[in-house]
C-alpha cells in the first residue's frame, strides 16, 4: 500500500504540516496492551531534531492540503497555486505503524485542509485514528487537529480515540482574525475548544465513578497563536493564554513566529525574518505562568504591553520589584525562591533539600546550577555580601546584566524550552 509514489505525497503533506509548531507527545501515560503495539510515556520522547532545531517526535502530517478556505497567513490557502494531494486513511495508518515500529516516532499528529466541508474532512481524520486504535491495536500517542466548524458528534468521536485534540486560534484578536481568515471567526474556533474542554471534564467525572468509562482526549487540548502577523501586543497575547489555561484548562499554548509564506498579500506585514526572539520571550513568559506561579499582568500590563527583547521576563519582573529583594536563600519561601532570576525549578529542588542539612553559601549554589551572574543581585546567602538590586538601583543592575554575555544566546533559550522535561530514569 505504501509505495514509491508515497514519497511525493509525503513530501507535500509533511511540508504542508510543518508550520504547526506543536510537538509535544506528553501528558498521557499508557502501557501497552496484550498483543498490541506501543505505549505513551508521561513525558514524551523526541526521536530526532530537524535542521531548524525543532524536535521531531511525531509524524506530523496533513491528510490533505486541498482547502476550501483562504486564510491569508496559510501556505495551503485556496488561492495559492501549489501541488495538491491527499493520503487515504489507510495510507496514513500504515505509514504511522511502519514508522513507529522502527522507533522513528512517538506517534501521529494529524491535521488537514478543509476538503469539501468540515464534517467530511473530520470523518476521514477520525477514520485514520479509529483504524490505528482498533485494527492495528496501536497504543501510541495521537494528536488530532479539530477542523473548525465540525459537528459536536465528530469532535466527541475524535476525542474518544485521540490523546490530544487541538484547535488553532492563530490570530489573537477577533477583528484581526476576521480580516486575515474571512472564512473563520472566534466562534468557529472557540466553540470546538469549549466542546473539548467539556468533554474532558465529563470523562474525568465519569471515570471517578466507573473506572472503565471511556477516556476523552486524556492529554488535554492545546492551541497555537501566530506572533507578528498582526499588531496585537504581548499583553493581549498573554492575557488570552492565561484565560485559556485557567478557563479552558489548556495544556499548552504554542507561539509561532510568523513566517511570510504569502508575501504578496498586503494584509500582512513585510518581515525580513520571523520574529524568533519575540517568540522565545513569549515562551519564557508562558513558562513563568505555568511553572512559576506568575500572573500574566505581572509580566506585561498596560504600561509595559510588550516583552523586553533584551532581558528575560523574570529579570524584568525582578527589576520592576526591587523592594522584594534580596531574598535569603537559607530561609526564603519556595514560591519566592522561584521568582529569583538565575534560579530554576531544578536548582530549587536541590536548594530545598540541601538547606535541611546545612546553611548554604554561594559555592554550594553554583554547584547546584544557580546562575550566580544573575542571581547575585537578588539574593543573600551565608557569606555573600555583594551589592544587590537595592544597593545598586534597578537601572544599574539592568546595565550590568545586559553587558554580560551571561544571558545566554537565543539558541540556548530555545534549547531549554524545547528539550523534553524528563524525570531521571528509574
Amino acid at each position, binding site marked *: 500500500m505504501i509505495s514509491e509514489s508515497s514519497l511525493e505525497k509525503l513530501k507535500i503533506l509533511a511540508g504542508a504540516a510543518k508550520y504547526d509548531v506543536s510537538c509535544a507527545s506528553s501528558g498521557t501515560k499508557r502501557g501497552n496492551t496484550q498483543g498490541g503495539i506501543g505505549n505513551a510515556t508521561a513525558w514524551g520522547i523526541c526521536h530526532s*531534531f530537524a535542521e*531548524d532545531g525543532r524536535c521531531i517526535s511525531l509524524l506530523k502530517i496533513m491528510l490533505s492540503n486541498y482547502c476550501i478556505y483562504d486564510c491569508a497567513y496559510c501556505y495551503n490557502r485556496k488561492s495559492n497555486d501549489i501541488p495538491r494531494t491527499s493520503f487515504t486513511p489507510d495510507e496514513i495508518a500504515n505509514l504511522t505503524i511502519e514508522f513507529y515500529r522502527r522507533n*522513528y516516532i512517538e506517534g501521529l499528529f494529524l491535521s488537514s485542509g478543509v476538503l469539501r466541508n468540515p464534517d467530511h474532512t473530520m470523518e476521514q481524520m477520525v477514520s485514520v485514528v479509529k483504524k490505528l486504535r482498533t485494527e492495528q491495536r496501536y497504543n501510541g500517542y495521537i494528536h488530532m487537529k479539530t477542523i473548525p466548524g465540525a459537528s459536536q458528534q465528530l469532535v466527541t468521536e475524535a476525542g474518544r480515540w485521540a490523546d490530544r485534540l487541538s484547535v488553532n486560534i492563530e490570530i489573537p484578536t477577533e477583528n484581526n482574525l476576521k480580516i486575515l481568515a474571512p472564512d473563520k471567526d472566534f466562534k468557529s474556533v472557540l466553540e470546538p475548544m469549549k466542546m473539548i474542554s467539556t468533554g474532558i471534564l465529563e470523562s474525568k467525572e465519569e471515570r471517578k465513578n466507573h473506572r472503565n468509562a471511556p477516556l476523552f482526549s486524556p492529554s488535554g487540548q492545546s492551541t497555537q497563536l501566530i506572533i507578528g502577523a498582526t499588531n496585537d501586543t504581548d499583553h493581549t497575547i498573554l492575557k488570552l493564554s492565561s484565560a485559556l489555561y485557567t478557563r479552558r484548562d489548556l495544556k499548552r499554548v504554542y507561539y509561532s513566529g510568523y513566517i511570510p509564506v504569502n508575501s504578496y498579500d498586503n494584509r500582512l506585514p513585510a518581515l525580513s525574518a520571523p520574529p524568533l526572539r519575540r517568540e522565545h520571550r513569549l515562551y519564557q513568559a508562558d513558562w513563568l505562568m505555568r511553572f512559576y506561579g506568575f500572573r500574566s499582568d505581572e509580566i506585561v500590563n498596560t504600561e509595559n504591553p510588550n516583552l523586553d527583547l533584551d532581558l528575560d521576563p523574570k529579570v524584568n519582573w525582578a527589576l520592576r520589584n526591587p523592594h522584594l529583594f534580596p531574598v535569603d536563600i537559607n530561609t526564603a519561601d519556595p514560591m519566592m525562591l522561584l521568582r529569583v532570576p538565575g534560579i530554576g525549578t531544578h536548582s530549587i529542588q536541590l536548594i530545598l533539600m540541601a538547606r535541611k542539612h546545612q546553611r548554604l553559601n554561594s559555592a554550594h549554589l553554583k554547584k547546584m546550577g544557580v546562575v550566580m551572574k544573575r542571581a547575585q543581585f537578588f539574593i543573600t546567602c551565608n557569606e555573600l555580601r555583594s551589592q544587590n538590586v537595592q544597593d545598586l538601583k534597578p537601572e544599574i543592575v539592568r546595565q550590568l546584566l545586559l553587558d554580560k554575555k551571561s544571558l545566554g544566546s537565543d539558541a540556548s533559550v530555545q534549547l531549554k524550552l524545547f528539550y523534553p522535561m524528563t524525570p531521571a530514569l528509574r
Partner: protein
Amino acid sequence: MTIYSFDNTFEGLLTLVFECYSRKQFPDEILSGEGSQSVLFGSTSNIVTDDRKAERVWNGIISRSSEDNAHRIYRVFLSGLPDAPLLLVKYIRLIIDSTKNEETNFSLPVVVEVNKLHQKVCREAQRIHMFTRFQKTIEGSYYASYAPMYDVLPLCIPHFSDRFADQHWIIYDLKRNYGFLYDMKTVSRVVFDDLKVNPQNGQLHASLLAEDEKLFQRLWKQYFKSICIEERRNDKVHRQHLPKRFWKYLPEKL
C-alpha cells in the same frame, strides 16, 4: 597506599566495599579488570566477587538511604569511567557511615559528583530511547545497533520490551559487543561473533533486509527534510540536540 582490584562487575564493586569494612582498609586506588596491571603495583589485593557479600552491601545502602539511591549507584557504575569505582566507594562509605540519609546533601562534593555522573548516564540512556532506529529484517524481526558512550542498554530494555511487545527485536551495543534479544516472551543477553552489520553505520547487510526496508528509510529521510522550516534553520541547536556521534546510525542523517 591501598590498592584493590576487582572484576569490573557491579557485584564485584559491592564485594569490594564489604571487604574494605571487614579489613578496615579503604582504597586509595581501584584497578578494574585485567590482573596484569596489578603486577606493576606489587601490593594490590584482588577482590573475588561474592554475591552474598554484595547483597549485604546493597541492602545496607537501601536501609541507610533508599532504594532509589541504590539504583542510582548502579547506574553511575554503568558509566564505566575509570574513576567511577573509587568515587562510588567513597559515596557508599558516606551513606553507610552516616546516621542520617545523606543522599540529598548537595553541600558535599562527593554527593554532587555522583549526581552529576548519574545525570550523564541517564541522559545517554534517554538518547538510546530517542535515537534507536530499527531495521526490519527479511524474517520480519527488527534490528538496531549503537555504540553508546556508557553501558546503558540494560537500562533501556524495559522501555523497548513494553513498547515493542508484539515484534521480535535485537538491540546491540557495537562498542561492548553484546546486545539483547526479545522473542515476544523474554529478553535475553546475546553475543554474536559473526554479526552481519556494517560497523560504520550499524546497517544490516542488504541481503538480510526486508524488501521494503530501504523504502521506509527513504520515506523517513524525506519526512526529515520536509518538516524543516528553512527560514528557521539553526544548525547550532540542531547539533546540540542531535550529537554528531549518532549521525552515522540515523537513516535521516545518512
